[in-house]
Protein backbone atom coordinates (compact mmCIF):
# COMPACT_ATOMS: atom_id res chain seq x y z
CA UNK A 1 0.00 0.00 0.00
CA UNK A 2 1.65 3.17 -1.14
CA UNK A 3 0.00 6.27 0.15
CA UNK A 4 3.10 8.45 0.08
CA UNK A 5 2.22 11.74 -1.40
CA UNK A 6 3.59 12.80 -4.68
CA UNK A 7 4.10 16.42 -5.46
CA UNK A 8 4.48 17.76 -8.94
CA UNK A 9 7.81 19.22 -9.92
CA UNK A 10 6.41 22.71 -10.26
CA UNK A 11 4.78 22.61 -6.89
CA UNK A 12 8.07 21.45 -5.40
CA UNK A 13 9.96 24.33 -6.99
CA UNK A 14 7.36 26.76 -5.72
CA UNK A 15 7.60 25.43 -2.19
CA UNK A 16 11.39 25.67 -2.27
CA UNK A 17 11.20 29.24 -3.52
CA UNK A 18 8.75 30.08 -0.76
CA UNK A 19 11.08 28.49 1.75
CA UNK A 20 13.98 30.64 0.60
CA UNK A 21 11.93 33.81 0.76
CA UNK A 22 10.86 33.00 4.30
CA UNK A 23 14.40 32.12 5.28
CA UNK A 24 15.75 35.36 3.87
CA UNK A 25 13.10 37.34 5.69
CA UNK A 26 13.97 35.58 8.93
CA UNK A 27 17.64 36.34 8.49
CA UNK A 28 16.89 39.97 7.72
CA UNK A 29 14.74 40.21 10.79
CA UNK A 30 17.30 38.57 13.02
CA UNK A 31 20.03 40.74 11.58
CA UNK A 32 18.22 43.84 12.59
CA UNK A 33 17.12 42.80 16.01
CA UNK A 34 19.65 40.61 17.78
CA UNK A 35 22.41 41.92 19.99
CA UNK A 36 26.04 41.39 19.14
CA UNK A 37 26.41 38.40 21.44
CA UNK A 38 23.62 36.45 19.76
CA UNK A 39 24.81 37.65 16.39
CA UNK A 40 28.23 36.17 17.07
CA UNK A 41 26.69 32.85 18.01
CA UNK A 42 24.52 32.82 14.91
CA UNK A 43 27.51 33.64 12.75
CA UNK A 44 29.39 30.76 14.32
CA UNK A 45 26.44 28.48 13.69
CA UNK A 46 26.54 29.35 10.03
CA UNK A 47 30.30 28.87 9.79
CA UNK A 48 30.11 25.54 11.56
CA UNK A 49 27.31 24.56 9.22
CA UNK A 50 29.64 25.08 6.28
CA UNK A 51 32.34 23.05 8.00
CA UNK A 52 29.89 20.33 8.91
CA UNK A 53 28.63 20.15 5.34
CA UNK A 54 32.14 19.92 3.98
CA UNK A 55 33.05 17.18 6.40
CA UNK A 56 29.82 15.30 5.80
CA UNK A 57 30.44 15.28 2.09
CA UNK A 58 33.75 13.52 2.60
CA UNK A 59 33.00 11.39 5.65
CA UNK A 60 29.28 10.81 5.53
CA UNK A 61 28.57 10.63 1.83
CA UNK A 62 31.80 9.31 0.35
CA UNK A 63 32.69 7.22 3.36
CA UNK A 64 36.25 8.54 3.71
CA UNK A 65 37.36 8.91 7.27
CA UNK A 66 39.06 12.30 7.05
CA UNK A 67 40.05 14.17 10.18
CA UNK A 68 41.80 16.98 8.40
CA UNK A 69 39.22 19.77 8.31
CA UNK A 70 41.02 21.87 10.90
CA UNK A 71 44.07 22.13 8.67
CA UNK A 72 42.09 23.26 5.63
CA UNK A 73 40.18 25.70 7.76
CA UNK A 74 43.48 27.12 8.93
CA UNK A 75 44.63 27.68 5.36
CA UNK A 76 41.51 29.63 4.54
CA UNK A 77 41.67 31.58 7.77
CA UNK A 78 45.26 32.61 7.22
CA UNK A 79 44.62 33.57 3.61
CA UNK A 80 42.03 36.06 4.75
CA UNK A 81 44.12 37.15 7.71
CA UNK A 82 47.24 37.84 5.70
CA UNK A 83 45.68 39.44 2.69
CA UNK A 84 42.96 41.61 4.14
CA UNK A 85 44.96 43.44 6.78
CA UNK A 86 45.77 46.93 5.50
CA UNK A 87 49.35 47.11 4.30
CA UNK A 88 50.29 49.86 6.74
CA UNK A 89 49.43 47.72 9.73
CA UNK A 90 51.55 44.79 8.70
CA UNK A 91 54.88 46.13 9.82
CA UNK A 92 53.69 46.57 13.37
CA UNK A 93 52.08 43.16 13.40
CA UNK A 94 55.06 41.21 12.20
CA UNK A 95 57.38 42.54 14.84
CA UNK A 96 59.40 39.42 15.43
CA UNK A 97 60.32 38.90 11.83
CA UNK A 98 59.21 41.15 9.03
CA UNK A 99 56.63 39.96 6.62
CA UNK A 100 57.88 38.26 3.51
CA UNK A 101 58.27 40.83 0.74
CA UNK A 102 56.35 38.76 -1.75
CA UNK A 103 53.13 39.09 0.18
CA UNK A 104 53.78 42.35 1.99
CA UNK A 105 52.25 44.46 -0.67
CA UNK A 106 49.26 42.37 -1.60
CA UNK A 107 45.98 43.45 -0.16
CA UNK A 108 42.79 41.85 -1.35
CA UNK A 109 39.13 42.55 -0.78
CA UNK A 110 37.53 40.12 1.58
CA UNK A 111 35.64 38.05 -0.97
CA UNK A 112 38.72 37.54 -3.09
CA UNK A 113 40.79 36.57 -0.08
CA UNK A 114 38.12 34.17 1.07
CA UNK A 115 37.90 32.49 -2.32
CA UNK A 116 41.67 32.42 -2.52
CA UNK A 117 41.69 30.67 0.84
CA UNK A 118 39.27 28.09 -0.45
CA UNK A 119 41.31 27.53 -3.60
CA UNK A 120 44.55 27.19 -1.66
CA UNK A 121 42.95 24.68 0.67
CA UNK A 122 41.71 22.78 -2.37
CA UNK A 123 45.18 22.73 -3.91
CA UNK A 124 46.73 21.48 -0.70
CA UNK A 125 44.02 18.85 -0.45
CA UNK A 126 44.84 17.74 -3.95
CA UNK A 127 48.51 17.38 -3.09
CA UNK A 128 47.73 15.56 0.13
CA UNK A 129 45.03 13.45 -1.42
CA UNK A 130 47.26 11.93 -4.02
CA UNK A 131 49.29 9.84 -1.57
CA UNK A 132 46.80 9.59 1.24
CA UNK A 133 43.52 8.60 -0.34
CA UNK A 134 44.84 5.23 -1.35
CA UNK A 135 44.92 4.23 2.30
CA UNK A 136 42.45 2.11 4.14
CA UNK A 137 39.93 3.67 6.53
CA UNK A 138 41.69 3.98 9.84
CA UNK A 139 45.03 4.81 8.26
CA UNK A 140 43.36 7.54 6.25
CA UNK A 141 42.10 9.04 9.49
CA UNK A 142 45.54 9.18 11.02
CA UNK A 143 47.13 10.41 7.82
CA UNK A 144 44.67 13.28 7.40
CA UNK A 145 45.05 14.11 11.06
CA UNK A 146 48.78 14.08 10.54
CA UNK A 147 48.58 16.47 7.64
CA UNK A 148 46.30 18.77 9.56
CA UNK A 149 48.95 18.89 12.23
CA UNK A 150 51.75 19.38 9.72
CA UNK A 151 49.90 22.38 8.34
CA UNK A 152 49.51 23.79 11.81
CA UNK A 153 53.15 23.20 12.71
CA UNK A 154 54.29 24.75 9.47
CA UNK A 155 52.15 27.81 10.13
CA UNK A 156 53.63 28.04 13.62
CA UNK A 157 57.10 28.13 12.15
CA UNK A 158 56.80 30.28 9.06
CA UNK A 159 57.41 33.43 11.00
CA UNK A 160 57.66 35.72 8.04
CA UNK A 161 54.45 34.57 6.42
CA UNK A 162 52.07 33.68 9.17
CA UNK A 163 53.73 35.53 12.01
CA UNK A 164 54.26 32.18 13.65
CA UNK A 165 52.94 31.50 17.10
CA UNK A 166 52.08 35.14 17.60
CA UNK A 167 49.21 34.86 15.22
CA UNK A 168 47.66 37.68 13.33
CA UNK A 169 45.46 40.24 15.00
CA UNK A 170 43.23 43.06 13.91
CA UNK A 171 41.88 41.34 10.87
CA UNK A 172 39.17 43.55 9.45
CA UNK A 173 36.10 41.92 10.92
CA UNK A 174 34.01 42.06 7.83
CA UNK A 175 31.65 39.35 8.81
CA UNK A 176 31.01 40.09 12.44
CA UNK A 177 28.74 43.09 12.04
CA UNK A 178 26.15 41.28 10.06
CA UNK A 179 24.57 37.89 9.52
CA UNK A 180 24.46 38.15 5.77
CA UNK A 181 28.01 37.10 4.94
CA UNK A 182 28.02 33.86 6.85
CA UNK A 183 24.45 32.94 6.17
CA UNK A 184 24.54 33.55 2.45
CA UNK A 185 27.72 31.52 2.08
CA UNK A 186 26.17 28.79 4.22
CA UNK A 187 23.05 28.74 2.09
CA UNK A 188 25.07 28.67 -1.11
CA UNK A 189 27.14 25.82 0.27
CA UNK A 190 24.06 23.86 1.23
CA UNK A 191 22.49 24.39 -2.17
CA UNK A 192 25.64 23.31 -3.95
CA UNK A 193 26.00 20.22 -1.80
CA UNK A 194 22.42 19.17 -2.42
CA UNK A 195 22.84 19.63 -6.16
CA UNK A 196 26.12 17.74 -6.16
CA UNK A 197 24.72 14.79 -4.27
CA UNK A 198 21.70 14.56 -6.51
CA UNK A 199 23.92 14.42 -9.56
CA UNK A 200 25.58 11.36 -10.98
CA UNK A 201 28.79 12.29 -9.18
CA UNK A 202 26.92 12.33 -5.89
CA UNK A 203 25.67 8.85 -6.60
CA UNK A 204 29.20 7.78 -7.38
CA UNK A 205 30.33 9.12 -4.00
CA UNK A 206 27.62 7.17 -2.25
CA UNK A 207 28.55 4.07 -4.18
CA UNK A 208 32.10 4.39 -2.94
CA UNK A 209 30.79 4.66 0.59
CA UNK A 210 28.53 1.64 0.24
CA UNK A 211 30.98 -0.72 -1.38
CA UNK A 212 34.06 0.62 -3.02
CA UNK A 213 35.00 -2.67 -4.61
CA UNK A 214 31.63 -2.94 -6.30
CA UNK A 215 31.82 0.73 -7.27
CA UNK A 216 35.14 0.14 -8.96
CA UNK A 217 33.74 -2.91 -10.70
CA UNK A 218 30.99 -0.72 -12.09
CA UNK A 219 33.51 1.52 -13.75
CA UNK A 220 33.99 4.25 -11.15
CA UNK A 221 37.58 5.40 -10.81
CA UNK A 222 37.89 5.28 -7.04
CA UNK A 223 40.92 7.46 -6.75
CA UNK A 224 39.66 10.26 -8.96
CA UNK A 225 36.32 10.41 -7.20
CA UNK A 226 37.80 10.23 -3.73
CA UNK A 227 40.15 13.07 -4.55
CA UNK A 228 37.27 15.07 -6.00
CA UNK A 229 35.20 14.68 -2.85
CA UNK A 230 38.19 15.44 -0.65
CA UNK A 231 39.14 18.55 -2.60
CA UNK A 232 35.61 19.93 -2.65
CA UNK A 233 35.39 19.34 1.09
CA UNK A 234 38.67 21.15 1.63
CA UNK A 235 37.56 24.09 -0.52
CA UNK A 236 34.53 24.73 1.62
CA UNK A 237 36.49 24.22 4.81
CA UNK A 238 38.87 26.91 3.58
CA UNK A 239 36.01 29.25 2.81
CA UNK A 240 34.61 28.69 6.28
CA UNK A 241 38.06 29.38 7.69
CA UNK A 242 38.12 32.72 5.93
CA UNK A 243 34.75 33.67 7.36
CA UNK A 244 35.97 32.53 10.76
CA UNK A 245 39.05 34.73 10.64
CA UNK A 246 36.99 37.74 9.68
CA UNK A 247 34.53 37.00 12.44
CA UNK A 248 37.01 36.60 15.24
CA UNK A 249 39.43 39.25 14.08
CA UNK A 250 42.46 37.20 15.09
CA UNK A 251 43.99 33.90 14.10
CA UNK A 252 46.76 31.89 15.62
CA UNK A 253 47.91 28.33 15.04
CA UNK A 254 46.66 27.10 18.39
CA UNK A 255 43.07 27.67 17.28
CA UNK A 256 43.46 24.94 14.72
CA UNK A 257 44.77 22.20 16.95
CA UNK A 258 43.23 19.02 15.65
CA UNK A 259 40.68 18.52 18.45
CA UNK A 260 38.83 21.30 16.66
CA UNK A 261 37.90 18.68 14.10
CA UNK A 262 36.13 16.76 16.85
CA UNK A 263 33.54 19.52 17.00
CA UNK A 264 32.70 19.01 13.36
CA UNK A 265 32.67 15.28 13.88
CA UNK A 266 30.11 15.70 16.61
CA UNK A 267 28.03 17.90 14.34
CA UNK A 268 27.83 15.38 11.58
CA UNK A 269 27.30 12.43 13.90
CA UNK A 270 24.57 14.25 15.77
CA UNK A 271 22.86 15.37 12.62
CA UNK A 272 23.25 12.12 10.82
CA UNK A 273 26.24 11.22 8.70
CA UNK A 274 24.43 10.88 5.43
CA UNK A 275 22.16 13.87 5.74
CA UNK A 276 22.86 17.50 4.89
CA UNK A 277 19.66 18.61 6.59
CA UNK A 278 20.91 16.83 9.67
CA UNK A 279 24.23 18.64 9.47
CA UNK A 280 22.52 22.01 9.52
CA UNK A 281 20.50 20.99 12.55
CA UNK A 282 23.57 19.52 14.19
CA UNK A 283 25.63 22.64 13.60
CA UNK A 284 23.08 24.91 15.18
CA UNK A 285 22.47 22.58 18.10
CA UNK A 286 26.13 22.05 18.86
CA UNK A 287 27.20 25.66 18.46
CA UNK A 288 24.30 27.06 20.40
CA UNK A 289 24.56 24.27 22.92
CA UNK A 290 28.22 24.95 23.52
CA UNK A 291 27.44 28.60 24.14
CA UNK A 292 24.58 28.00 26.47
CA UNK A 293 26.50 25.40 28.39
CA UNK A 294 28.87 28.19 29.35
CA UNK A 295 26.79 28.70 32.44
CA UNK A 296 28.31 25.51 33.74
CA UNK A 297 31.67 27.16 33.84
CA UNK A 298 30.46 29.70 36.35
CA UNK A 299 29.99 28.92 39.99
CA UNK A 300 26.40 28.23 40.71
CA UNK A 301 24.67 28.86 43.97
CA UNK A 302 21.18 27.82 44.83
CA UNK A 303 19.67 29.49 47.83
CA UNK A 304 23.01 30.82 48.96
CA UNK A 305 24.67 27.38 48.83
CA UNK A 306 27.48 27.06 46.36
CA UNK A 307 27.28 23.93 44.25
CA UNK A 308 30.87 22.74 43.96
CA UNK A 309 30.53 21.11 40.59
CA UNK A 310 30.15 24.22 38.54
CA UNK A 311 33.46 25.65 37.63
CA UNK A 312 35.47 26.22 34.47
CA UNK A 313 35.80 23.08 32.44
CA UNK A 314 32.48 21.50 33.32
CA UNK A 315 31.03 22.71 30.07
CA UNK A 316 33.45 20.69 28.00
CA UNK A 317 33.06 17.63 30.21
CA UNK A 318 29.31 17.69 29.72
CA UNK A 319 29.87 18.29 26.01
CA UNK A 320 32.17 15.29 25.73
CA UNK A 321 29.78 13.10 27.65
CA UNK A 322 27.02 14.11 25.25
CA UNK A 323 29.25 13.16 22.32
CA UNK A 324 29.88 9.78 23.87
CA UNK A 325 26.20 9.18 24.55
CA UNK A 326 25.31 10.05 20.99
CA UNK A 327 27.97 7.81 19.56
CA UNK A 328 27.01 4.93 21.77
CA UNK A 329 23.26 5.12 21.73
CA UNK A 330 22.19 7.30 18.90
CA UNK A 331 24.79 6.88 16.26
CA UNK A 332 22.49 7.25 13.31
CA UNK A 333 21.95 10.79 14.44
CA UNK A 334 18.84 12.89 14.22
CA UNK A 335 18.21 12.55 10.51
CA UNK A 336 20.06 9.32 9.80
CA UNK A 337 20.59 9.44 6.08
CA UNK A 338 17.34 11.15 5.22
CA UNK A 339 16.90 14.67 4.03
CA UNK A 340 14.03 17.05 4.43
CA UNK A 341 11.97 16.71 1.32
CA UNK A 342 8.70 18.41 0.54
CA UNK A 343 7.07 15.00 0.20
CA UNK A 344 8.29 14.15 3.66
CA UNK A 345 7.22 17.42 5.23
CA UNK A 346 3.80 17.63 3.66
CA UNK A 347 3.23 13.96 4.22
CA UNK A 348 4.12 14.25 7.88
CA UNK A 349 0.58 14.75 9.22
CA UNK A 350 -0.63 11.79 7.20
CA UNK A 351 2.23 9.64 8.45
CA UNK A 352 1.50 10.57 12.03
CA UNK A 353 -2.16 9.77 11.57
CA UNK A 354 -1.24 6.45 10.06
CA UNK A 355 0.95 5.56 12.97
CA UNK A 356 -1.71 6.28 15.52
CA UNK A 357 -4.50 4.50 13.76
CA UNK A 358 -2.48 1.32 13.49
CA UNK A 359 -3.06 -1.41 15.99
CA UNK A 360 -5.73 -4.02 15.85
CA UNK A 361 -9.25 -2.92 16.67
CA UNK A 362 -10.35 -5.52 19.10
CA UNK A 363 -13.97 -6.28 18.74
CA UNK A 364 -15.63 -7.32 21.93
CA UNK A 365 -17.08 -10.48 20.61
CA UNK A 366 -14.04 -12.69 20.52
CA UNK A 367 -14.83 -15.65 22.57
CA UNK A 368 -12.10 -18.12 23.23
Amino acid at each position, binding site marked *: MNDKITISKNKRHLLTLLFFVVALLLIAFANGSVNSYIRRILNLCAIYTILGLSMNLVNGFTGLFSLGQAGFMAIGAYAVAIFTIPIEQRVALYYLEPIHPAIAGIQLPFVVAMLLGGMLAAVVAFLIGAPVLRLRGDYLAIATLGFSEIIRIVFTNLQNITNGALGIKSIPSVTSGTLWWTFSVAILTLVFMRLLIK*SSYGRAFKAIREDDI*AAEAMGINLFRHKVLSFVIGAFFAGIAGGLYAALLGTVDPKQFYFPLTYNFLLIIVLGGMGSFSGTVIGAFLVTAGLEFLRVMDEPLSIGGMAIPLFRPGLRMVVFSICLMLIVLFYNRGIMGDKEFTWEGILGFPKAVKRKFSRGPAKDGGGKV
Partner: protein
Amino acid sequence: MSVLYAKNATIRFGGVVAVNDFSFEVNQGEIVALIGPNGAGKTTAFNIITGVYSPTAGDVYFDADNSGNSLKITGLSPDRITKLGMARTFQNIRLFKNLTVLENVLIAKHLRMKSNFLSAAFTFPWARKEERAMQEEALQLLKELKLDSAKDEISSSLPYGMQRRLEIARALATQPRLLLLDEPAAGMNPQETEDLTAFIRSIREKYDLTVFMIEHHMDLVMEISDRIYVLDFGEMIAHGTAEEVQNNPRVMEAYLGVEADA
Protein backbone atom coordinates in the same frame (compact mmCIF):
# COMPACT_ATOMS: atom_id res chain seq x y z
CA MET B 1 36.19 -14.87 -32.58
CA SER B 2 37.91 -14.58 -29.30
CA VAL B 3 36.54 -11.99 -26.92
CA LEU B 4 38.66 -12.86 -23.91
CA TYR B 5 41.66 -15.04 -23.54
CA ALA B 6 44.41 -15.62 -21.05
CA LYS B 7 47.84 -17.14 -21.33
CA ASN B 8 49.43 -18.88 -18.37
CA ALA B 9 47.73 -16.73 -15.78
CA THR B 10 49.30 -17.43 -12.42
CA ILE B 11 48.90 -15.79 -9.06
CA ARG B 12 50.74 -16.42 -5.85
CA PHE B 13 49.73 -15.21 -2.39
CA GLY B 14 52.71 -15.66 -0.14
CA GLY B 15 53.39 -19.37 -0.34
CA VAL B 16 50.05 -20.34 -1.86
CA VAL B 17 49.69 -20.59 -5.62
CA ALA B 18 46.00 -19.86 -6.01
CA VAL B 19 45.88 -20.04 -9.77
CA ASN B 20 48.57 -21.83 -11.70
CA ASP B 21 49.24 -21.49 -15.37
CA PHE B 22 45.65 -21.07 -16.42
CA SER B 23 45.05 -20.47 -20.11
CA PHE B 24 41.57 -20.16 -21.53
CA GLU B 25 39.57 -18.54 -24.24
CA VAL B 26 36.03 -17.25 -24.54
CA ASN B 27 34.53 -16.58 -27.94
CA GLN B 28 31.90 -14.17 -29.11
CA GLY B 29 28.39 -15.21 -28.17
CA GLU B 30 29.46 -18.21 -26.10
CA ILE B 31 28.41 -19.09 -22.63
CA VAL B 32 31.46 -20.59 -21.01
CA ALA B 33 31.42 -22.04 -17.52
CA LEU B 34 34.21 -22.25 -14.98
CA ILE B 35 33.66 -25.00 -12.47
CA GLY B 36 35.62 -26.80 -9.82
CA PRO B 37 35.46 -27.72 -6.15
CA ASN B 38 35.36 -25.04 -3.50
CA GLY B 39 38.62 -23.21 -3.14
CA ALA B 40 39.79 -24.21 -6.58
CA GLY B 41 40.63 -20.63 -7.47
CA LYS B 42 37.65 -19.75 -9.65
CA THR B 43 36.79 -16.41 -8.08
CA THR B 44 40.49 -15.66 -7.89
CA ALA B 45 40.68 -16.23 -11.63
CA PHE B 46 37.78 -13.83 -12.08
CA ASN B 47 39.55 -11.30 -9.93
CA ILE B 48 42.60 -11.55 -12.15
CA ILE B 49 40.49 -11.08 -15.27
CA THR B 50 38.65 -8.08 -13.88
CA GLY B 51 41.76 -6.39 -12.55
CA VAL B 52 41.15 -6.79 -8.83
CA TYR B 53 44.37 -8.78 -8.60
CA SER B 54 47.43 -8.46 -10.74
CA PRO B 55 48.71 -11.88 -11.79
CA THR B 56 52.18 -12.92 -10.73
CA ALA B 57 52.71 -14.24 -14.21
CA GLY B 58 50.78 -14.55 -17.44
CA ASP B 59 48.53 -12.16 -19.29
CA VAL B 60 44.89 -11.54 -20.05
CA TYR B 61 43.64 -10.15 -23.35
CA PHE B 62 40.32 -8.61 -24.17
CA ASP B 63 38.80 -7.65 -27.48
CA ALA B 64 36.93 -4.58 -26.42
CA ASP B 65 35.46 -3.34 -29.62
CA ASN B 66 34.70 -6.36 -31.73
CA SER B 67 37.58 -5.47 -34.00
CA GLY B 68 39.45 -8.74 -33.71
CA ASN B 69 42.29 -6.88 -32.00
CA SER B 70 42.78 -7.95 -28.46
CA LEU B 71 44.11 -5.51 -25.92
CA LYS B 72 46.37 -6.71 -23.12
CA ILE B 73 44.44 -5.87 -19.97
CA THR B 74 46.76 -7.48 -17.44
CA GLY B 75 47.21 -5.19 -14.49
CA LEU B 76 44.68 -2.59 -15.56
CA SER B 77 42.43 -1.32 -12.81
CA PRO B 78 38.91 -2.73 -12.53
CA ASP B 79 37.25 0.49 -13.55
CA ARG B 80 39.35 0.72 -16.72
CA ILE B 81 38.44 -2.83 -17.61
CA THR B 82 34.75 -2.21 -17.03
CA LYS B 83 34.96 0.86 -19.22
CA LEU B 84 36.38 -1.35 -21.95
CA GLY B 85 33.27 -3.48 -21.86
CA MET B 86 33.59 -6.21 -19.25
CA ALA B 87 31.19 -6.33 -16.29
CA ARG B 88 30.81 -8.74 -13.41
CA THR B 89 28.68 -9.86 -10.53
CA PHE B 90 29.99 -11.08 -7.20
CA GLN B 91 29.83 -14.38 -5.39
CA ASN B 92 28.46 -12.72 -2.25
CA ILE B 93 26.10 -10.11 -3.62
CA ARG B 94 27.68 -6.69 -3.51
CA LEU B 95 24.80 -4.37 -4.10
CA PHE B 96 24.88 -0.82 -2.78
CA LYS B 97 22.82 -1.86 0.18
CA ASN B 98 21.39 1.39 1.44
CA LEU B 99 20.63 2.81 -1.98
CA THR B 100 17.53 2.21 -4.03
CA VAL B 101 17.21 -0.24 -6.90
CA LEU B 102 17.20 2.62 -9.39
CA GLU B 103 20.23 4.25 -7.83
CA ASN B 104 22.15 0.98 -8.01
CA VAL B 105 21.58 0.82 -11.74
CA LEU B 106 22.15 4.55 -12.31
CA ILE B 107 25.53 4.32 -10.64
CA ALA B 108 26.54 1.75 -13.21
CA LYS B 109 25.83 4.34 -15.87
CA HIS B 110 28.18 6.93 -14.37
CA LEU B 111 31.21 5.56 -16.12
CA ARG B 112 29.98 6.85 -19.46
CA MET B 113 29.33 10.36 -18.22
CA LYS B 114 31.26 13.00 -20.02
CA SER B 115 30.20 16.10 -18.07
CA ASN B 116 32.36 17.22 -15.19
CA PHE B 117 31.04 17.56 -11.68
CA LEU B 118 30.27 21.25 -11.92
CA SER B 119 28.19 20.86 -15.06
CA ALA B 120 26.43 17.93 -13.49
CA ALA B 121 25.72 19.71 -10.21
CA PHE B 122 24.47 22.88 -11.88
CA THR B 123 22.56 20.90 -14.51
CA PHE B 124 24.01 22.67 -17.50
CA PRO B 125 22.12 21.70 -20.65
CA TRP B 126 24.55 19.06 -21.88
CA ALA B 127 24.75 17.47 -18.45
CA ARG B 128 21.00 17.56 -18.06
CA LYS B 129 20.69 15.71 -21.35
CA GLU B 130 23.14 13.07 -20.20
CA GLU B 131 21.35 12.65 -16.90
CA ARG B 132 18.00 12.27 -18.63
CA ALA B 133 19.40 9.65 -20.98
CA MET B 134 20.90 7.75 -18.06
CA GLN B 135 17.59 7.76 -16.23
CA GLU B 136 15.71 6.54 -19.29
CA GLU B 137 18.18 3.78 -20.02
CA ALA B 138 18.17 2.68 -16.40
CA LEU B 139 14.39 2.56 -16.21
CA GLN B 140 14.24 0.71 -19.50
CA LEU B 141 16.69 -1.88 -18.24
CA LEU B 142 14.77 -2.32 -15.01
CA LYS B 143 11.58 -2.79 -16.95
CA GLU B 144 13.15 -5.42 -19.21
CA LEU B 145 14.46 -7.28 -16.18
CA LYS B 146 11.11 -6.96 -14.38
CA LEU B 147 12.54 -4.88 -11.55
CA ASP B 148 10.85 -1.58 -12.32
CA SER B 149 8.06 -2.01 -9.81
CA ALA B 150 10.67 -2.00 -7.07
CA LYS B 151 12.71 0.87 -8.43
CA ASP B 152 12.49 3.04 -5.32
CA GLU B 153 12.91 0.23 -2.84
CA ILE B 154 16.08 0.00 -0.82
CA SER B 155 18.08 -2.74 -2.52
CA SER B 156 18.85 -4.69 0.63
CA SER B 157 15.13 -5.06 1.31
CA LEU B 158 14.52 -7.06 -1.85
CA PRO B 159 14.04 -10.80 -1.78
CA TYR B 160 17.19 -12.75 -2.52
CA GLY B 161 16.34 -13.77 -6.06
CA MET B 162 15.54 -10.18 -7.01
CA GLN B 163 18.80 -9.01 -5.51
CA ARG B 164 20.72 -11.39 -7.72
CA ARG B 165 18.74 -10.18 -10.69
CA LEU B 166 19.45 -6.59 -9.73
CA GLU B 167 23.16 -7.30 -9.57
CA ILE B 168 23.00 -8.63 -13.10
CA ALA B 169 20.93 -5.62 -14.18
CA ARG B 170 23.53 -3.33 -12.68
CA ALA B 171 26.30 -5.10 -14.56
CA LEU B 172 24.30 -4.86 -17.77
CA ALA B 173 23.86 -1.14 -17.25
CA THR B 174 27.55 -0.63 -17.95
CA GLN B 175 26.86 -1.81 -21.50
CA PRO B 176 29.32 -4.68 -21.47
CA ARG B 177 30.37 -6.93 -24.23
CA LEU B 178 31.39 -9.65 -21.85
CA LEU B 179 29.52 -10.52 -18.69
CA LEU B 180 31.24 -12.39 -15.87
CA LEU B 181 28.81 -14.04 -13.48
CA ASP B 182 30.13 -15.40 -10.19
CA GLU B 183 27.78 -18.10 -8.94
CA PRO B 184 24.59 -16.43 -10.15
CA ALA B 185 22.46 -19.34 -8.96
CA ALA B 186 23.87 -19.53 -5.45
CA GLY B 187 21.16 -20.09 -2.90
CA MET B 188 18.46 -20.66 -5.49
CA ASN B 189 15.98 -23.52 -5.48
CA PRO B 190 15.49 -25.63 -8.64
CA GLN B 191 12.64 -23.47 -9.93
CA GLU B 192 14.58 -20.27 -9.52
CA THR B 193 17.60 -21.90 -11.14
CA GLU B 194 15.48 -22.86 -14.12
CA ASP B 195 14.22 -19.30 -14.42
CA LEU B 196 17.78 -18.05 -14.22
CA THR B 197 18.87 -20.42 -16.98
CA ALA B 198 16.23 -19.05 -19.30
CA PHE B 199 17.09 -15.54 -18.16
CA ILE B 200 20.77 -15.89 -19.00
CA ARG B 201 19.91 -17.26 -22.40
CA SER B 202 17.55 -14.39 -23.07
CA ILE B 203 19.97 -11.66 -22.07
CA ARG B 204 22.69 -13.20 -24.17
CA GLU B 205 20.29 -12.94 -27.08
CA LYS B 206 18.95 -9.54 -26.29
CA TYR B 207 22.12 -7.67 -25.40
CA ASP B 208 24.45 -9.53 -27.73
CA LEU B 209 26.55 -10.75 -24.86
CA THR B 210 29.25 -13.23 -24.23
CA VAL B 211 29.02 -14.87 -20.82
CA PHE B 212 31.73 -16.37 -18.63
CA MET B 213 30.22 -17.94 -15.58
CA ILE B 214 31.35 -19.56 -12.35
CA GLU B 215 28.75 -21.95 -11.11
CA HIS B 216 28.19 -24.93 -8.84
CA HIS B 217 24.67 -25.83 -9.91
CA MET B 218 25.53 -28.56 -12.39
CA ASP B 219 22.11 -28.62 -14.02
CA LEU B 220 22.48 -24.97 -14.95
CA VAL B 221 26.02 -25.52 -16.12
CA MET B 222 25.38 -28.56 -18.22
CA GLU B 223 22.17 -27.11 -19.66
CA ILE B 224 23.48 -23.82 -20.83
CA SER B 225 27.23 -23.93 -21.38
CA ASP B 226 28.84 -24.10 -24.75
CA ARG B 227 32.11 -25.03 -23.14
CA ILE B 228 33.37 -25.69 -19.65
CA TYR B 229 36.70 -25.22 -17.92
CA VAL B 230 37.40 -27.17 -14.76
CA LEU B 231 39.78 -25.88 -12.09
CA ASP B 232 41.13 -27.84 -9.19
CA PHE B 233 43.71 -26.44 -6.77
CA GLY B 234 44.26 -23.60 -9.14
CA GLU B 235 45.06 -25.71 -12.17
CA MET B 236 42.93 -26.47 -15.16
CA ILE B 237 42.28 -30.17 -15.17
CA ALA B 238 39.76 -30.43 -17.96
CA HIS B 239 38.19 -28.44 -20.71
CA GLY B 240 35.56 -29.17 -23.29
CA THR B 241 31.86 -29.51 -23.93
CA ALA B 242 29.43 -30.60 -21.27
CA GLU B 243 29.56 -34.30 -22.26
CA GLU B 244 33.32 -34.33 -22.46
CA VAL B 245 33.72 -32.83 -19.05
CA GLN B 246 31.01 -34.93 -17.43
CA ASN B 247 32.73 -38.11 -18.39
CA ASN B 248 36.22 -36.97 -17.51
CA PRO B 249 37.59 -39.14 -14.70
CA ARG B 250 39.86 -36.42 -13.36
CA VAL B 251 36.86 -34.16 -12.93
CA MET B 252 34.96 -36.81 -11.05
CA GLU B 253 37.95 -37.42 -8.84
CA ALA B 254 38.33 -33.74 -8.07
CA TYR B 255 34.74 -33.35 -7.04
CA LEU B 256 34.22 -36.62 -5.25
CA GLY B 257 37.72 -37.24 -4.07
CA VAL B 258 37.61 -40.86 -5.07
CA GLU B 259 38.87 -42.86 -8.03
CA ALA B 260 36.25 -42.84 -10.75
CA ASP B 261 35.91 -46.56 -10.89
CA ALA B 262 35.94 -47.25 -7.16
